[in-house]
């Protein structure tokens, strides 16, 4: 942390960035409004792109970068660096100390067989740790936590020296049953300090003290793997921003949806996994709360994928023990479902002659055919150009001129000709399929979890989604859509407005019919709470102001999967145990249906979790009293489009966003040009704007 302890946080500005694969998005709050900017991400030295984005934002309010940074109180990072390190398995060179007999744990990967039938997909997983950097240690703890064999110090020393000689930078200590009894892992840590003090060390029990060695070990290994990129990012940013006068608090946004300080990140960089997408989810939550909306579905469409999540009663669901590829981990992150349906997704005909969209993408190189950079396969963006939904002369504020003829040729060659369809109909089919893919993803997070989309409002953000939002919702029966102000840099907005959140987990395995274990569980809860308070205070957060959520994972004795629910306040008693056990069957049946509870089986509280939240002050966003009976503005142009749902041509008005004040209502069909994004309002839909400049789209009937 840059700021000295006890210093107050002053300054006019707060900045949130979302460093993505292509763009670095930025939202800056000033005393009056929110400013957004966008720059290319500079891989290798991320600070460069970030400073460029800051410069662009400063320019908009007539200030210099230094003027803004020197009175910037908070700088929040959402970033793809950890996601990249893990998905590409490129990061700090990592060594592992592991219980003897189990060095192949990573290669075996808990069984890497996929659910697909295709045998060509059943391939060995990539080596996540080089095999000569895995050292076995003759140590063993059993399932009851008894030490069967303590590590031999000489063997440990030799192993550590070998890792050092092999050039590792970080060491994960991965011993069986260490969460039951960490003594052997602690011993390894002590020797590591003596022999290899410069190494970054992660103990598996410290990072994820939960049963199941593969996810626990993977968490430790991924933590090591993400350490170098994170440290470099932090060091670079600290010095570059510091040089420009920044003296505020720097925090980092985690995949679980809240931000933490530098010290916490340096210890556990893995928590930054999936930080960008989580930013968008929390931004939607923030705006929904302000608008009094309780049930939210979110959608974010980028170039290669569509991400979606559900917030029932404003509570995002959490993916527990998230898996990355074949690697299961112990990391909890917001449950975001991603499907390969983005602007660059390619349309193709499968073996049955049925058109499909994605998951393959033309990426940014060569990109869609209409980019004119050599792409020949039809993409979703090409379809939008043919349908007239994207203005080929004014794409991204005119940054690219699009080649309509190339788009038509690609769509004919890839889909239309084989099926005997006109170019427009083929384009409409591609549009439809993209809608179906996205609607199916939304169905996965809603219908399949027992939520009906009709009770939800869809928050649509990301560059391309405004063209699809109404048609997606038509298929889902979801009547209301919000396209938030700043929707094109929405993850940065979410990152900026996020609260401080930290989560602590532990396995306790309390059979609730045995009240004698309560004492032990209470002690664990107290310890976790004390840790939460200490961590908050180390970031200048008043521990007294923390909101604490306590949850437990429950199951019937003998089951493998758990159901999570809150656990009662205060010290747990025998009465609490009885009540938790008595109420569990109903919770369980709500999940799995009547008659499914395991009659007569004891209930076990497997894991306990504490979530500490500190609500940060929210920035001011623009607000204006809505006009009543606002007259329809003059369209900036009239465009001929092919309406995909009706499958017919129409001349529709195009409006510029700046001409649309709060209170305005526009009937579809029309198009709203927001500069860096476009909204398509089909026939039968109405577009309005609220006092916070968010657009709302409503389907009639």
């Amino acid at each position, binding site marked *: 942390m840059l700021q000295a302890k006890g210093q107050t946080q002053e300054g006019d500005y707060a900045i949130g960035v979302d460093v993505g694969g292509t763009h670095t998005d930025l939202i800056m709050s000033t005393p009056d409004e929110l400013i957004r900017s966008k720059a290319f991400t500079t891989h290798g030295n991320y600070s460069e792109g970030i400073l460029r984005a800051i410069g662009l934002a400063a320019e908009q309010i007539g200030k210099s970068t230094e003027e803004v940074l020197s009175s910037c109180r908070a700088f929040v990072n959402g970033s793809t660096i950890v996601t990249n390190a893990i998905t590409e398995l490129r990061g700090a060179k990592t060594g592992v100390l592991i219980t003897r007999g189990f060095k192949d744990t990573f290669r075996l990967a808990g069984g890497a067989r996929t659910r697909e039938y295709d045998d060509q997909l059943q391939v*060995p997983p990539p080596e996540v740790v080089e095999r000569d950097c895995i050292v076995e240690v003759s140590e063993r703890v059993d399932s009851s936590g008894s030490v069967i064999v303590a590590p031999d110090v000489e063997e440990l020393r030799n192993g550590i020296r070998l890792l050092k000689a092999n050039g590792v930078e970080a060491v994960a200590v991965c011993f069986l049953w260490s969460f039951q009894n960490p003594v052997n892992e602690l011993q390894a840590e002590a020797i590591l300090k003596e022999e290899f003090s410069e190494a970054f060390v992660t103990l598996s029990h410290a990072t994820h003290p939960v049963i199941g060695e593969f996810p626990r070990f993977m968490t430790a290994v991924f933590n090591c793997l993400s350490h170098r990129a994170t440290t470099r990012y932090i060091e670079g940013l600290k010095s570059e921003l510091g040089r420009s006068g920044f003296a505020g608090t720097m925090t980092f946004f985690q995949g679980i949806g809240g931000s933490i300080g530098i010290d916490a990140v340096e210890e556990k960089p893995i928590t930054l996994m999936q930080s960008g997408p989580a930013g968008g989810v929390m931004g939607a939550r923030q705006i929904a709360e302000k608008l009094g909306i309780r049930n939210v579905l979110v959608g974010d469409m980028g170039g290669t994928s569509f991400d979606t999540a559900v917030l029932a009663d404003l509570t995002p669901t959490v993916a527990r023990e998230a898996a990355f590829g074949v690697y299961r981990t112990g990391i909890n992150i917001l449950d975001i479902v991603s499907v390969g349906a983005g602007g660059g997704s390619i349309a193709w005909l499968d073996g049955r002659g049925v058109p499909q969209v994605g998951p393959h993408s033309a990426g940014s190189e060569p990109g869609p055919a209409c980019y004119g950079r050599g792409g020949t396969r039809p993409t979703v963006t090409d379809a939008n150009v043919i349908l007239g939904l994207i203005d080929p002369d004014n794409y991204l504020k005119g940054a690219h001129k699009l080649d309509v003829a190339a788009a038509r040729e690609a769509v004919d060659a890839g889909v239309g000709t084989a099926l005997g369809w006109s170019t427009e109909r083929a384009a409409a089919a591609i549009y439809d399929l993209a809608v179906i893919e996205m609607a199916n993803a939304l169905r996965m997070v809603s219908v399949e979890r027992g939520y009906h989309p009709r009770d939800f409002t869809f928050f649509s953000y990301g560059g391309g989604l405004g063209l699809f939002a109404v048609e997606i919702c038509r298929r889902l029966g979801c009547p209301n859509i919000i396209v938030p102000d700043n929707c094109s840099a929405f993850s940065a907005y979410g990152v900026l407005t996020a609260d401080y959140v930290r989560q602590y987990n532990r396995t306790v395995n309390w059979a609730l019919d045995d009240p004698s274990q309560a004492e032990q569980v209470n002690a664990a809860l107290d310890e976790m709470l004390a840790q939460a308070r200490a961590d908050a205070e180390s970031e200048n957060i008043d521990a007294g102001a923390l909101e604490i959520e306590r949850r437990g994972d429950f199951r019937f004795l003998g089951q493998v999967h758990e159901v999570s629910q809150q656990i009662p306040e205060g010290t747990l008693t025998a009465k609490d145990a009885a009540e938790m056990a008595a109420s569990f069957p109903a919770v369980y049946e709500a999940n799995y249906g009547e008659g499914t509870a395991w009659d007569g089986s004891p209930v076990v509280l497997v894991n306990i979790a504490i979530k500490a939240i500190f609500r940060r002050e929210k920035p001011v966003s623009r607000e204006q009293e809505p006009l009543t009976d606002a007259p329809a503005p003059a369209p900036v142009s009239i465009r001929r489009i092919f309406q995909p749902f009706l499958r017919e041509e129409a001349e529709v008005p195009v409006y510029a966003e700046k001409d649309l004040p709060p209170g305005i209502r526009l009937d579809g069909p029309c198009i709203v040009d927001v500069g860096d994004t476009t909204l398509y309002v089909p026939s039968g839909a109405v577009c309005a704007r609220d006092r916070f400049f968010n657009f709302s789209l409503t389907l009639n009937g």
Partner: protein
Amino acid sequence: MDVMTADDFDIIDVEVHQKSVRNIASEMAVTLMRTSGSPVVTDAKDFSTSILDDKVEQLSFAGHVTFHVSTAVAGVQAVLRNTAIEDIRPGDGFICNDPHSSGAIHQGDVGIVMPFFAQDEIVGWGYVNAHLLDVGGSAVSGFAAGAFDNYSEALAFPAVRVIREGRLDAQWQRFISNNVRMAGTVINDIRSMIAANNVGGRRIAALIDEIGIDRFRQLNEQGKNLSEKAMRDVIARMPDGTYDSSDWVEYDGRGVEGLHEIRVRLLVQGDEMTLQFRGGPQVNCFINGAWPAVVGQSWTTILAQLAYDIPVNAGIWRPITFDLGPTGTLVNSVAPAPVTMSHIQTGMRVNKLLTDVFSQACSLSKDRLIASRVASQSAQDQTYFTAFGMDRRNGQPALAFPMSVGMSTGGPAQTNSDGMEVYAAQCMSGCDMPDVELEEVSQPGMILWRRVAQDTGGAGVTRGGLGVDTAMAILHCDSMNGGAYTNTALVPPRGAVGGFPGAAGAWKHWRNTNLLDLMDRHVFADTDTIVGEVPETTATVTDFAVVRGDIYHVIHGGGGGLGDPLRRDAGLVARDVSGGLVSKEVARNIYGVVLGAKDEVDAAATSAKRDEIRTARINAMPNAVVDKDAPLFSPVRIENGHWQCTGCGHDLGPSPENWRNHAVSRETEVSVRFADLHSQVRRRKDGEPVVMREYYCPACASSLSVDIGLDSSPPAAAPRLGTFDPYPENLILNA
């Protein structure tokens, strides 16, 4: 109606519908998995869910276990044979777990059939099948190694109604509980299966409410037509002709090392194919195949190798004919044949037979995609044990069925990759290997190690996946009894297109060990410290008895290799050596790769070594050089009516005669040859020996095929393109 010329957006409506029915089948699967308590379901994914229509045709399948494609259909047919449809009410449910009467794979895989109603009529059926922890009888967990007939194997439900109004009938529950070990878990898993069907029924009814029954039926038919078309397109791209393969089912549980031949003949004609299976008379031990296992395991291989991207529904059945020959044989057994291992014994040999014939056809296809589907056989050595005892810590019944110990066998080499470890069996899509810590909670012991077993993967351009070497010590029961099994000890998995075979499976029972003493003295227990007796046993043990401190130790087999190992990238061999997956000796002697002190490739020495091996193969200096651009996975081809080596163009005689007659061949007793490969296979002590036959091009010494057979069996047949020569209908082998 031809969907392609129907209203052009129908095709997309059909796709949407198909996905939504498939989502319902998946949701049934998720419900089962989340609520079940046995790792057999939650980790090994030994279950499946299906939705069928009122014509008892499949609409969707959310397998994990792909052989249930057949049992779903056979199960619902059995219900309708036994019960008048007017008598079936909403919430009824039927148990089908008997291969002979209710279409099950084996008695341990229990199917629950429930009707799906909409507007008071039956519109379809839900079928959920899971391997239950126990089904009573002499079998622990449904594997009756010692049974002589199906009556002594396990409880066998012939599609009887045990569920009313969505709940297990109390009388039946009492009956089942009284007859199975681990009654609590078994009854709860049946409840989970009911819950899964209930979810499916509700969702189908809601879907029909939304789109109407007529539209529902119309879209279902169009979906089947699309899958049929796709299946026909795949078959049409395989060369017309007749393809043969033989394999041997093993059983030595009564002391005699029995090998029982079964054969397949694949006939490809245009866009249809016929699979003919033939075997000898059925036998009095649990290896017999019955219709569900033979057809179900056929689907496993068809889906894995050819039809992997086609939505599973009744349409894919249409262009394929299954001909199992006369009843009463190993591939078409009837009561009283014991069948508790029909899927693992005869069934998994069916996988191997089909991998062989499909690969023969694919390697000769001019279609690049189909040609790339050549694959070796996976190990599929199902080597594990099940046993029952009392837990000394709490006096409760304890069942040993350590999934992680049993499933970590090597996968098949593919044209795009080496095979994977922990492939389990081909039918087990999506299976996970339980964590050691979870096994040590659910099993009565401790896992001592879990290591990749060097040199078990077959050599080739791409290597077979390796087996895993695992040991589990019995600690929490004073004694346990059950069975120990392996289906692949004598006849190892073959490579393809010139690749070498992978290792067979092996296991050891360590008795009278010093393990408890080592633990007391805090000494690490590993191969260098454990002392005990390892008695010689049969591969299948019908009365397996273990006591506290004993160790069950398995070294699993590996997948076969693909292509001539001399053409494997030397850098990949070096990587395998430094990773400990392949020994230096095998790298040198089989791959011809010579490594330096730091395991780096010595290019000059490697080139010389490879030449030396080629000379040794044909016992002469090769007079042709392998074209470096020659295809890696298609060693022979037909040009102008003649077989030819694709490596150098050497003539191998007229087609359709067997090109093997014109190759240099070498035959060795398999265990002798496997010693060179550092691989493992059990030597057959009595009866005809198992032999390995290698065929090399007389000109360039390329490896053309490596076959496995019995000493007296004729050479493996070559494909006969353009010939359509079915087996006689009543053929019984060795009759």
